[in-house]
């Protein structure tokens, strides 16, 4: 009896452990399915929808890269300096007395940095470059900015403060890198004049002459 009891307690522990594991996060799947992160409280509830949202929904349709100016030049997109916010808001009298803007000016007057919480935080052993992705998809493939940023960040233009809406696991990254992306124009000229490394096998060419290839697949691309 004693022995049985012990075993049952052990099994119970195992079950509890397993279920806690399951509850924390589902096993990874190679999908692009949305995976909503927790809502995060920020020092100022920044309304992305107001700044980047569509005009018919009251948004200003500001390009993401107007504020996140480092994204096209650096590994990290960066949070804009307060200077940037003030640059516009010092001449927008209509919202000057609203609580959020008042709070913004408090930080500015005290010359204190705003302690934003990081929403999209990859582990330190992952080297993700915003610059490379933006160069490829926005400047070479001419895709719309909000669509491209949205691949990873979701539909930020409808959010207030950002909330993670993609899994951002390695499997999730790979699910996109495994797809065939066009690397040449119709005539076979490399897009953006950037010759593409096809690895061991040159991929098949379709009827219109467009060559498609998968995204970079070497470990060392992300794990330096």
């Amino acid at each position, binding site marked *: 009896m004693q022995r049985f009891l012990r075993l049952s307690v*052990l099994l119970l522990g195992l079950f509890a452990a397993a279920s806690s594991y399951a509850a924390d996060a589902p096993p990874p799947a190679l999908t692009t399915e949305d995976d909503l992160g927790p809502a995060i409280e920020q020092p100022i509830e920044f309304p992305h929808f107001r700044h980047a949202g569509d005009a018919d929904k009251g948004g200003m349709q500001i390009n993401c890269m107007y504020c996140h100016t480092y994204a096209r030049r650096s590994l990290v997109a960066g949070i804009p300096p307060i200077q940037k916010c003030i640059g516009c808001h010092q001449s927008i009298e209509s919202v000057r007395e609203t609580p959020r803007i008042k709070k913004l000016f408090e930080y500015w007057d005290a010359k204190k940095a705003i302690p*934003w919480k990081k929403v999209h935080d990859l582990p330190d052993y992952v080297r993700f470059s915003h610059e490379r992705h933006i160069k490829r998809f926005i400047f070479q493939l001419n895709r719309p900015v909000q669509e491209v940023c949205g691949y990873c960040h979701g539909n930020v233009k409808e959010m207030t403060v950002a909330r993670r809406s993609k899994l951002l696991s390695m499997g999730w990254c790979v699910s996109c890198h495994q797809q065939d992306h066009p690397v040449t124009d119709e005539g076979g000229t490399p897009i953006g004049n950037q010759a593409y490394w096809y690895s061991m096998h040159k991929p098949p060419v379709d009827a219109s002459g467009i060559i498609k290839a998968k995204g970079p697949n070497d470990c060392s691309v992300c794990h330096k």
Partner: protein
Amino acid sequence: MMNSGSVKHLAGHPFDRRDFLKVLGWGGAAVALSGCGNGSVEDGKETVVSYVETNDYMIPSISVYFNSTCAQCDAGCSITGRIREGRVLKLEGNPNSAINRGKTCGLGQAGVQHHYNPDRVREPLLRNGDQGEAITWEKAYALIAEKLNGVSGEEIAFLTGGVSGHLKVLLGNYLDSFGSKNHFVYEAVGPAVLRAANKKSYGVEMPRFNINKAKVVLSFGADFLGAWISPVHFSQQYAQFRKGVDGQRGVLVQIESKMTLTGANADRWLVVRPGTEGILALGIINALGTATGDIAAAVKGYDKARVSKDTGVSAEQIDKIVALLKERTPSLVLAGSAAEGYAHGSQNAAAINLLNQVLGNVGKTVEAAAVVPFPQMAPATGNTFALKTLNDGLNAGKYKVLFSYAANPVFTAPGAMKFKDNLAKAGFKVAFTHYLDETAMQADLVLPLDSALEDWGTQVPEYMAEGAQINIQQPLMEKLHANTRGMGDILLALIKLRRADDYKKYDDYYAYLRAAVLQNKGALGGGVADDDTFWNETLSKGIIKLASAAHALSGKAGAAGLSLPAPSAIDAQYPLQLIPSVNASLRDGRNTNQPWLQESPDPLTTIVWDSWVEIHPRKAAELGIVEGDIVEVTGKNGSIKVQAYLFPGIHPDAISIPLGRGHEALGRYAKGYGVNPFQILDMVFDKETGELALHETRVKVSKTGSRVIVVKDEGPAGGSQMGKKIAARLPSDKVKLSEEVYYVG
């Protein structure tokens, strides 16, 4: 996860510890799994702080670079700092400097550890018994003013390390303001004897040594690849010298009693009886047979048989050196610190310089150096005579107020000098310092300085590589600690207390520096550029290069007054000569608290984080000492206990202990590691210059009975390469230096 309470409750009976651990183990595994599984993206855990205001060029993850000057030693190498997200990460050499041409040494690399050192002093501290009490700067300045009140200029002393540039000007003006002439410039291991000898031989203290133009270099203990004068510059010259002039690869002959890094790189390394370098130099002059007049007369007595007997260098070797010097011109002869460190050090250096003169090298490989056309900014170079003078003054109770900056005499003065006790006789002691070093620990008021990477300044190097240059020191990042101050700012604040009218137009040292540089824009090569453009360009380059004339060089000193003593007889009680060696990274010990330097193995012994005593294997066998034995090294002025390392590159009648370790303060990375040979040095001084003769200490070695494993990089069998006979090591008593046959095991 479950806790033990709920398990107990579920099971309904007491649980023993083993069962509990089992369950806990499973639970823990589950936590670990869920912690590192697919949910590795952390949302909202870390803070991402943006700038409030920033320059356009400050982009997160992209580095920016600023030029400044390395302050790790006095060579004045220009550096470029890599700064990311407002933090300095790495220092490299600035390619535009003729001194270091884009390179740095290990010491320079460790400069970031000076800046980020956790043991930096962060607040002004006032002595309260054994404790330092944090006070404000206003109170500190007021206290200094109060203590200086009614004190005459003669009763005030200012002790510094080597200073130059505008800081020296400001310091001079400050001392002037109360009519004090007591500026003591102290350098524990500087080439002070050489400066005096050079002044006599060549007419200048520090000429240029063109190693790269020489076809043979004969170096008497000058460790120019390691720690001598401007090692980064000399290393690059050495590389050119090895590539050769006119297709002739340069040959390096090193003559010394203890092998240095340079000696280890030499084509021929000759061990010489300590202190007989000058005799050998005169013997070579005699053997060359080209000298005439009074020089010929002076060297007449130095025939090969006598020189060989005195120095321990065989007649055959002398012949070989002479043949080499005759065959290859120009040559270059260097008198290093090993030749200087004796009571007759000046004579040694003069004899060695005379050899240069006889060989016709003056004007060819020994050239006049360029001069900065602002004499008030020229470096005040340090020596040990200054320390002795200060010490005598302190002992006589002459000084009521003592300032100390960039010097740590409590650590570097010979113990027999009783500097620490004499220092206590000064009424009020102010230390400007980065760390609580041994000297700061004795101070009444400690004022914390900005690090070299946070401070403004100008520096004029003592050794000018090509044209004259003034180096700019500028902050590479914001200050780490709010309450540290730049030395220039402190001096400016202090001088404002005395000469407010002259200095009130300068808000801070930066303003002073900018005004001083722009005032001489024409002379500094600014031409017609407007002030802002010139200033910004100057800061961006980090160097002001000047068109200037060179000192006149004279090469006709002759042999007047040259007299070398016969080698001293072996002392029966203290039979061994102690050579305190200057190691490339630790030097005089001011940088010992930078752990990279503690961790980088000594180039010759590969020992880390500790001191050692080098003993010749034959002597060790005589004394029954093996590697790792803790031995007691006893001299007339005390003893130290240190681990033994058997080293064939040393004269059998000498032992060597490196300087720099053995701190009793200076922070967690320095305190308590190794021993300090400065403490047991004999008080012997050079007869001409009054400099402390570092190599004149006699000691005996005895076993203590304990033994340790020496922590070092090389294998247990030394350099035997695991028996593969690639680079077999031969005990030096078996090496026949006169036969150049490489031993292959």
